[in-house]
C-alpha cells in the first residue's frame, strides 16, 4: 500500500516535470503567434503578451497585400529543397550501396576517403573560394543546392550500414546468376527493400535544405534569389527590408509610418515556419526513428 502511494506520487511528479518541459518547448512559438495576431497599438502599450488584449490580423493583411517578395523567396526554397533532396538521396544511395558489398575492390580505401572528411577539413574560407573562384557559383541557385548540403558523409555511412544489415547477400547473388546488371539489382531490388532508410535520409535532406540560410548568406547577393530563411534573417534586423525593394525611397518612408512593425515581424516568422509546423505531426514519427537508428550504431 505504502509502496503504491509512493510510486503514484513519483509518477505524478514525472508527469509534472514533462508538462513543464512541454510548456518550455512550446511557449516561444505560442508567444510569436500571439504577437502576430495582436493589434500594433496593444503591443506598443503593453508589450508582447501570451494573452493578446486586442486581436488584429493587420500584420497578415500587410504581408499578404504585397506577397510577391515572400512568394519569390518561398519559390527559391521549394525549388532548392526539391531538387537538392532528390539528387542528394540518389548520390548518397549510389555511394553507400557498393560500399555495403563485402567483395567490392578498394572498399576500405573508399570508406577511408569518406571518413577522413569527417575528421579534417580545410575550413570555411578555402571552401568558399573553391566554389566562388573555381566553379563560379556565386549568385546562382546551384549555390544553395551544392555546397555542403548535397552529400553528408555521415548519411552515406548510415545508409551503408543499413544496406549491409538488411539486404541479404543471397538475393544479390541469385540476381547476379540470373544475369541482372548491377544497376538493375540496385534499382529493382536494393531500393525497394530500403524504403525506411530512404525516407529517413530524404527527410534529413529536406530539413537541411528547407532550413538553410548559411549558403544563401555566403553565396547570394541578389535579393531576387534569397530563400525564405534568409529573407527572414534580413527582416529580423531590418524590418524596412520588406519595403525597400518594390518601392521608391519616398514611398518607403510613407509605408513605414503605416506599417505595424512589431506584429509584421512576428507574422513573417509565422508565415516562415507554418509549413514546417503543419508538416511536423506527419513526419515526426520517421524523424524520431531516423535519429534513433543513427544512434544505435553511429
Amino acid at each position, binding site marked *: 500500500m505504502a509502496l503504491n502511494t509512493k510510486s503514484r506520487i*513519483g509518477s505524478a511528479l514525472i508527469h509534472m516535470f514533462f508538462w513543464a518541459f512541454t510548456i518550455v518547448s512550446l511557449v516561444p512559438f505560442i508567444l510569436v503567434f500571439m504577437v502576430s495576431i495582436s493589434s500594433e497599438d496593444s503591443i506598443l502599450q503593453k508589450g*508582447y503578451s501570451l494573452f493578446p488584449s486586442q486581436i488584429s490580423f493587420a500584420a497578415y493583411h500587410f504581408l499578404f497585400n504585397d506577397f510577391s517578395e515572400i512568394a519569390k523567396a518561398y519559390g527559391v526554397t521549394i525549388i532548392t529543397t526539391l531538387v537538392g533532396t532528390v539528387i542528394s538521396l540518389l548520390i548518397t544511395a549510389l555511394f553507400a550501396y557498393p560500399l555495403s558489398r563485402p567483395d567490392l575492390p578498394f572498399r576500405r580505401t573508399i570508406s577511408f576517403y569518406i571518413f577522413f*572528411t569527417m575528421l579534417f577539413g*580545410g575550413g570555411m574560407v578555402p571552401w568558399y573560394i573553391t566554389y566562388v573562384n573555381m566553379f563560379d557559383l556565386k549568385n546562382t541557385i546551384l549555390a544553395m543546392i551544392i555546397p555542403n548540403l548535397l552529400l553528408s558523409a555521415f548519411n*552515406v555511412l548510415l545508409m551503408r550500414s543499413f544496406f549491409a544489415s538488411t539486404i541479404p547477400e543471397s538475393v544479390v547473388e541469385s540476381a547476379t546468376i540470373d544475369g541482372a546488371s548491377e544497376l538493375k539489382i540496385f534499382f529493382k531490388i536494393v531500393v525497394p527493400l530500403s524504403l525506411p532508410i530512404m525516407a529517413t535520409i530524404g527527410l534529413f535532406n529536406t530539413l537541411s535544405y528547407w532550413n538553410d540560410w548559411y549558403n544563401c548568406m555566403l553565396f547570394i547577393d541578389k535579393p531576387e534569389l534569397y530563400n525564405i530563411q534568409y529573407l527572414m534573417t534580413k527582416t529580423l534586423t531590418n524590418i524596412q527590408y520588406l519595403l525597400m525593394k518594390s518601392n521608391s525611397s519616398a514611398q518607403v518612408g510613407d509605408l513605414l509610418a503605416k506599417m505595424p512593425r512589431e506584429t509584421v515581424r512576428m507574422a513573417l516568422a509565422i508565415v516562415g515556419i507554418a509549413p514546417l509546423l503543419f508538416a511536423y505531426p506527419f513526419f515526426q514519427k520517421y524523424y*524520431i526513428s531516423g535519429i*534513433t537508428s543513427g544512434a544505435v550504431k553511429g
Partner: protein
Amino acid sequence: MPNLKKSLKKYKWLLLMTLPGIVYLFINNYIPMYGVILAFKNYNYVDGIWGSAWAGLDNFKFLFNSQDAYIITRNTFLYNFVFIVLNLVMAVLVALLINEIKDKVISRFYQSTFLLPHIISMVVVAYLVYSFLNVDSGLINRLLTKWFGAEAISWYGEPKYWPYILVIVNAWKNVGYLSIIYFASIIGIDKEYYEAATIDGASKWKQMTRITIPLILPVITTMTLLAVSGILRSDFGLFYQVPMNTGALIPTTNTIDTFVYRAMIQSGDIGMSTAAGFYQSVVCFVLILVANAAVRRINKRDALF
C-alpha cells in the same frame, strides 16, 4: 595485375556508382583541404590561389599577436564545455524519466514536442529569442517592469548576459534531441535485468544507477567523444543569428567560426581567416585522435575507429 583488371571489369558498374560521391567529396572537401595553403599566402583576387605571393607564417603571427585569438578560443572552448556537460546531464535525466512513462501514446507525444525546437532553423530561433528579449516590448522586459518594478534591460546591448542566454537557447534546442538518442539506447536494454533486479528488491533509483546508466555508457561515451573532439567548433547559427550579429555583443558571443566569417566577409582578410580556420581544424583533428586513443585504451569497443 590481370586479376585486378578482371575484378575492375567485373565491378565496373559498382565502382561507377560511387563516382558522383567521390567527385563531390573531392570538390567540396579535398580541394578546400589543399586550399589551406592560403593561410601561408598573401592572397589577392587578381593573382588567385596559385599566383599570390607566399607570406610564410605572417598570417599566423598576425592572428596570434592580436587579442582575438585568445578571446575566440576561450569563448569557443568554454561555451562548448558548458554545453557538453549540461546537455549530457539533462538529456540523460530526461531519457531516464521518459523510460518511466508506461503509456506509449503519451511518451510519444512528449518526445515529439521536445524534438520540435531541434527541427527549426536558427533564424526562427533568433525570432523566438527576440520575442522574449526585445528591449521595448519583449516579454521579459515587460515582466521585469510590470511585475517586479525593475528597470528594463537592454539585452542586445549588454554582453554580460549572453553566456547565460546562449547556454539556455542551446539547451532548449538540443536537450530533447539528445534525450531521444539516449532513450533509444535505454529501450534496447534487455528487460530481464530489471526483472531480476526487482525480484532482488532493488529500488528504482538503484536500477537506474546500477543497470541503466552503466549499460548506456557506450552511447554516452561515443556522443561525448564526438562532442569533445569538436570543442573548438561552434554552431555558427547560434552565435551569429541569435545575437542578431550585434556589434556590442561581440566580446562574449564571438567564436572561432564567427570570427573567421567576419574576417573574411567584413574585413576581406583571406590569409588570416584561413589561418584561423586551419588552426581550428588542426586542433580538432588532434583532439579527435587523442580522445579516440584514450577511449580505445579503456574499452576498445567504444572507440570510433
